[in-house]
């Protein structure tokens, strides 16, 4: 520290910042019609929601069962000191519930009131999905459709977009208030 060989941290930081802004600007100019989504598997199908709801994706830790709550709350776990619920939203979407195995992940999402962990059979990372291939959900698609916004047609099938805001606001997620 303090000798002539030390790098100038200020210059490096400035440089980094410039690169960052430049990268952002480039991204904006070319990806206007893209929606950046976290893609994962639920009930054997591919689902997605916007990345800004997701705070992290983790392996399924030991879940501690909570007495006297509805079955969709599968347990709580320690997320770096914060007690967080692991929830199974598949019944809300009318999906089958295959066992969450080794590829299983918890998608930690942050809603307006609380953060919660959504159990998924697998997570496939972040993908930019193009609105050109988006089909909004048809009216009258049944009650389970209230949490869906539509789907993207991608090369190898489709990815269904979840309306995360509506889902997180659903009172069914509140323990004891089923």
């Amino acid at each position: 520290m303090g000798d002539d060989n030390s790098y100038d941290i200020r210059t490096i930081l400035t440089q980094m910042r410039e690169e960052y802004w430049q990268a952002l600007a480039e991204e904006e100019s070319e990806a206007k019609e893209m929606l950046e989504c976290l893609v994962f598997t639920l009930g054997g199908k591919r689902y997605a929601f916007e990345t800004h709801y997701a705070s992290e994706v983790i392996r399924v830790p030991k879940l501690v069962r909570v007495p006297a709550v509805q079955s969709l709350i599968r347990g709580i776990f320690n997320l770096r000191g914060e007690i967080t619920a692991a929830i199974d939203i598949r019944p809300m979407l009318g999906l089958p519930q295959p066992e969450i195995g080794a590829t299983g992940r918890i998608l930690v999402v942050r809603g307006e009131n609380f953060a919660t962990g959504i159990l998924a059979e697998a997570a496939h990372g972040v993908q930019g999905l193009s609105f050109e291939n988006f089909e909004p959900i048809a009216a009258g698609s049944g009650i389970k459709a209230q949490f869906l916004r539509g789907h993207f047609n991608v090369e190898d099938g489709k990815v269904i977009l979840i309306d995360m805001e509506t889902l997180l606001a659903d009172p069914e997620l509140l323990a004891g208030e089923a």
Partner: protein
Amino acid sequence: MANRYLEIFCREAEEHLASLQSGLLVLEKNPARTDLLHELLRNAHTLKGSARMVGLADISAITHTMEEQLKGMERGERTVDAQAIDLLLRGADAVALITSALMRGTTPELDVERFVAEYERGELGQHLSAEPKEAQPETLADTVRADVKTLDHLVNLVGELIINKKRLEAKLERLKEIGYALPDPHAAELASFRRDLEEDVLYLDYLIQELHGKAMGLRMLPLRTISDGLERLVRDLAQQLGREVQFQIVGQAIEMDRVLLEGLKPILIHLLTNALSHGIEAPEVRTAAGKQRRGTVLLSARHQGNSVLVEVRDDGRGMNPTSIKAAAVARGVLDQREADAISDEEALYLTFRPGFSTAEIVTDISGRGVGMDVVKKNIERVKGSVTLSSEPGSFTQVTLQLPLTLSVLDALIVACSGETFAIPTTYLQEIVKVRAIEIDTMGSGEVIKVRGATTPLYSLSGMLGLPEHRTAGDAPLSAVVLKHCDQRIACIVEAHLGYSEVVVKGLGKQFRNVRFLFGATILGDGNPALILNVPDLFESGRGVQRAPLSAEEMQAAQRRLKVLVVDDSITTRTMEQSILASQGYAVTTAVSGEDALEKSTAEQFDLVISDVEMPGINGFELTRALRESEQYRETPVIIVSSLSRDEDKRQALQSGAQAYIVKGAFDQGLLLETVQMLIG
């Protein structure tokens, strides 16, 4: 208090303040227009009621004074002149200052306490705008302002440190075992390494304890911060009830965790209200009984070990066990046989039973609507215990034992249904081994003898609705004996895993309405364990449900009962609606008596909850109108109002309401219990 309600209140207040302001200005120019007064009165009254609902005592005090002045004008006892209007405007200004500070999350630029006191005396006194508080230069240099959230975060981080230290300690134990398994030269080396590490961990432990103490100290506040308001309360109540009372406070400097202190305030308000309304006799009665005219109420606080003892003692008429038993039997809280079996001391605790005081507010016109069950609920919330002692004709003393903080507590760790639970030791009497032959059946349940006392026996898994692991056979079962107020129950667990100081973590908003749980902690292995809320277990035990229904089953078994909430204040409506909705009632709201009548003809409700003072048809008129209709002749009506005189209660019951709840004493438990009692 949920911020949501505060926000709703502030928005509502803005409307009323605007209308007060403009109305007052019109009135100032045309003092003869007394027709405006009624609307202004309603604004002030609604604000007062809403402020009470959300626990803003200052605003409710200011608006109360405004209301009194407006009433005086309406009755023609006070002249409508510039000075009077000025005074009212200042009241509105002060309320606006306080609400805008609330919205910003800052303190108002106003010495609120002083303002309220002066305002009540009708003094214009303090100038409201821009009165920068002169900070003492010397204190300024030594203190910094810290955000409460930052403080809480700091305490949480220290909690994390404690958990991590525990992990290190667990690892040291492992290291010891590994050492035993090693061949000698390595074993000796490892042993010396382990001893060094042990010393480091010990020093770390010492540092963490220091740090924890200091961090907690930052959250501590003296009792004084809440006691000033209490003096006011006692003075006002004494006046209202025609009592002569000397109120003493001892131990003002005793400090407690901010969170606990907040929880203590409503308890003390209830206890002092009880002391004055049920304890201290009227001066003539006291003189006749050979006592001093003037009664004494003593509030004292002192440290005892790791907790704080807070006592409220009055030298009034005391509690009479015989009449308490009789009242409890009359109200169906227990039957005669049970009443005969309990001691005089235990009889005092009957006043804590929900049915006891709820019945009182419904049937007893002069009842003050403040029940001991409310006190009990609050004490449970702050993990305290309560002791009652009394001598008929001479005194009543309520002693609260409270922890210094809620962020760390001593707990017994138990295994149950393959999970680990922590039981706060405050509720733990002892650990017992139970043999199958020691279990008797009584009624529909099982009991054991614990030190000669017959104690109900439950399985903890069964109570919690978790799968049973109870094995048949003659091996003794482990059980914990839990105590709460005057009750004892024994719960079978799989195993005890020892005592531990646990760091309490909230379960967050997603679990706000969860039963049986007080919070969670993180064990040495990094996994969470749930901390049981013992009072909930007693509630569950009383129903003798061996295998409680799951939340869904209970929901399905119950038809959604429909409740109509009528109130012109959006704060009150929203609060009542969410309280009731959280318990599974289907709630519809109406903004006025007319609106309520319209909605009630369109749909059949099982219960109506109404305010009194509303524009147009008031609550009493609404009740009468409902009673006259075929459809609503039998439907229960609860009046929730900030009018607290006995006269108002009498009028409510005469108009056909079943219950009357005063907003000042408003407690969601009380409302829910009343609703549940009336319609289930």
